[in-house]
């Protein structure tokens, strides 16, 4: 990684205001040829806004952007593409019903007379995939791809447009560790060819691993610059938040009580009718956190959907507090006191056009004090919102601001605040800290442990092994739709979990902790 001294992109004194917030204030940034510049900052610090300005989606109120020394006015993505800037957004912007090739050429169509020349495009895409080891099939439909693959499509899309400045906004938030490694390989081969990358992430380990330089934003201002050599996770966290952050979760012994959630040989089918959850049995007790570890796509998503009533249970039984809620409506399950942090915040967890206040009562809007009979009590809804906004440090101009105007991490905080503030005995949390900054992760983890200590049963599903290990009292490993082992967290090691997640047979695991050990063999293809 030899970062040159040629400045390819420079921002000078950028200021950008939105109603009620200054998203960027006098921000200056330099990007050198062949380097990876990491951008760090709390949720709402202004990272995405700055990138959107460089990409031409927003226009700055003041300040200027220079590309290879030339001042430019970028008034839209087509301008930035012309200047060689490509961007992969925090939330992908692909058309699900189009093929990979169609998505890639969209807006930059290769033509043969008046007709689309898809064949030429396909050839070019194959060439790019080979060159950068980006493995995707040009004829696959985007809706059938995993998130990791979709992201590659976004990257190829940028490369296809001959981008040599690539902006990656939280590219790893939704990737498996394996996919993250692959992405880093791609980034390294890009910079080796002289491209420059701006990389945004809340995972400090990754930033230290991939960046040449690190820039930190806080409340719209640049508060410092450093390099991986000088920085540690701890020092970066402190720079971001402005105080020292505890990286470990403080938690005492669990005192498990009666079972709150019981799954009895639950089988669930995916949209195509495949058995993605195969006779899973488990119990989550009051006062304990059960973590489900597993590479994404091994049935965790569907399992959570089935428990919460969003997907039919094909066979088996689900019990909450001893009552059978198999295939009950989401409303009935919610009313047993089951809080649910859904995996897909944009799709399920929020109505983006609604205010923060309305989203904070999305599933409790009909209960007192938020409603009397069928009449909404706006005052109670607003008070509730103001309380949670403060308590969970949601950065928003106010409770009536639409959630669509919030930064990615703050959207997630709205969901967390809503679900953790419900009085319930069961919390099901899928990827609860995805896209959240270190300071807020600390707080959310403390809150989850506090829930446990107050006697709630917590089912935690997370792609972050660190999170699973830090929070769980017991860890169940899911592989190909089966729980292949359940281990006490105290004695589980990363290596052991990693092996189990990769499908190793749990033979060297103490026998009594193995669940369904024999059936695992069949589950492996």
């Amino acid at each position, binding site marked *: 990684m030899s970062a040159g001294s040629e400045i390819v992109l420079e921002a000078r004194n950028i200021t950008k205001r939105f109603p009620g917030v200054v998203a960027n204030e006098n921000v200056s940034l330099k990007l050198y040829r062949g380097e990876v510049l990491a951008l760090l900052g709390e949720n709402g610090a202004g990272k995405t806004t700055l990138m959107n300005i460089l990409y031409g989606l927003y226009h700055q109120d003041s300040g200027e952007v220079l590309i290879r020394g030339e001042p430019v006015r970028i008034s839209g993505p087509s301008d930035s593409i012309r200047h060689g800037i490509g961007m992969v957004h925090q939330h992908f912007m692909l058309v699900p019903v189009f093929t990979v090739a169609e998505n890639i050429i969209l807006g930059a169509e290769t033509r043969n007379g008046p007709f689309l020349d898809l064949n030429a495009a396909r050839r070019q895409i194959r060439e790019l995939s080979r060159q950068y080891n980006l493995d995707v099939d040009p004829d696959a439909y985007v809706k059938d791809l995993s998130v990791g693959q979709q992201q590659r499509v976004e990257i190829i899309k940028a490369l296809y447009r001959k981008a040599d400045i690539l902006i990656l906004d939280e590219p790893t938030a939704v990737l498996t560790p394996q996919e993250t490694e692959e992405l880093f390989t791609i980034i390294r081969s890009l910079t080796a060819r002289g491209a420059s990358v701006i990389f945004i992430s809340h995972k400090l380990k990754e930033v230290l691993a991939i960046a040449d330089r690190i820039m930190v934003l806080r409340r719209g201002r640049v508060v410092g610059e450093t390099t991986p050599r000088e920085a540690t996770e701890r020092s970066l966290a402190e720079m971001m938040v402005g105080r020292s952050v505890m990286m470990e979760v403080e938690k005492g012994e669990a005192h498990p009580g009666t079972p709150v959630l019981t799954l009895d040989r639950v089988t669930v089918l995916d949209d195509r009718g495949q058995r993605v959850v195969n006779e899973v049995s488990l119990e989550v007790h009051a006062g304990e956190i059960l973590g489900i570890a597993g590479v994404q796509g091994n049935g965790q998503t569907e399992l959570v959907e089935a428990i919460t009533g969003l997907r039919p249970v094909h066979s088996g039984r689900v019990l909450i507090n001893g009552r059978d809620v198999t295939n009950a409506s989401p409303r009935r399950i919610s009313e047993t006191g089951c809080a649910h942090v859904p995996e897909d915040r944009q799709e399920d967890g929020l109505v983006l056009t609604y205010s923060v206040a309305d989203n904070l009562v999305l599933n409790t809007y009909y209960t007192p004090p938020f409603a009397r009979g069928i009449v909404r009590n706006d005052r109670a809804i607003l008070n509730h919102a103001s309380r949670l906004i403060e308590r969970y440090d949601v950065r928003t*101009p106010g409770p009536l601001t639409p959630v669509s105007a919030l930064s990615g991490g703050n959207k997630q905080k709205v969901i967390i605040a809503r679900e953790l503030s419900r009085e319930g005995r069961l919390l099901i949390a899928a990827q609860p800290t995805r896209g959240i900054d270190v300071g807020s992760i600390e707080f959310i983890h403390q809150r989850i442990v506090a829930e446990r200590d107050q006697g709630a049963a917590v089912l935690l599903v997370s792609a972050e092994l660190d999170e699973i290990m830090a929070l769980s009292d017991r860890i169940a490993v899911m592989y190909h739709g089966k729980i292949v082992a359940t281990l006490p967290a105290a004695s589980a090691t990363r290596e052991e979990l990693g092996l189990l997640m990769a499908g190793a047979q749990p033979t060297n695991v103490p026998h009594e902790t193995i669940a369904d050990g024999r059936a695992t063999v069949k589950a492996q293809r």
Partner: protein
Amino acid sequence: MERAGSQFSPRMDSRIQIWGMVHAAIVPIASVVVALVVGAAIIALSGANPLVAYSALFEGGLGSGRAFSRTLEKATPLIFGGLAVSLAFKCGLFNIGAQGQLLMGAVSAAFIGFSLQGLPSALHIPLALLVGALLGAVWAAIAGTLKAFTGAHEVITTIMLNFVAFNLTDWLADGPWKDRTPGNIVARTPAVAPEARLPDIVGVPLGIILAVLAAIAVWWLIWRTTIGFELRTVGQNASAAKYAGISVRRMTVLAMVASGFLAGLGGAVETLGVVGRFQPGFNVGLGFNAITIALLARTNPIAVIPASLLIGVMQAGASRMQFNSGVASEIIDVILALILFFVAADGIIRRVLRLRAEEGERVTLSSGRGS
């Protein structure tokens, strides 16, 4: 913990809201202006003077007490229709069937009106209105149920139900419910009993009063009740609605029923208030103008009132315009179509005014949501 991020300010919040409201009105108003300008160009091309035509148009709609009461008369069913379409839009449904629902409401209110004699007004009127509204609701419920349980798209089913309603009401008015008074040869029902006719309340027709009350009721339902919240949530994001424990099926049926109820009520009010009987063909096009109104009002129930009045003025003034300037009254339909075109394809207006796409709740012209 550091108490960061308390940038909360109520003033900021309300400023954002007011700005949002102003912003929401820009496109509809600009659409009307542009449509009138294009209409003026067409009038000029046809050799007439657009200024003369337009001043006659507005004089005919607003120039005198009589003109204004004609405008109110025209606007009344439009308000009901606009409310019906708006309410369905809130739930992500495109109710093209307001026309059919309105016909069903009109014919059944007429039946109650002429078949019962000697009932006091205080009983006869509410009964006829209610039956009309319920028939409209039933008619829409067919489409709602099909959507909820089979995924059949409401645009298709309501269009088909429109045809059924056209022919059914035609047949009723020319067959079993035909006016058999000697000398009548046209298809129409007998006149409703005088007790069933809508009176004026201190000089204001009861129909327009009911229409305004309906608009307020719909506004209240949508923005102040949990049912409205459920409807809107389904319309904005059906999978989030499911997550929130809202039954998408139930709300789909309910929204169509409520929408049909309003359209049916509109038909009943028109029958009892203006026409005095059911006569095929008297209110053709109402259901379609209702779509224009709903879009012009950006599905806001209160804004439906001025939008309906505007179109009411044009319809009331059309014959005056034709008389004064020689411009065929059909030009009004052209202008209405242009308004619909500009509000629906609002990208054009936005580009002209250099506005950004807006942040508020979306109006989905057609959602692919099925069962």
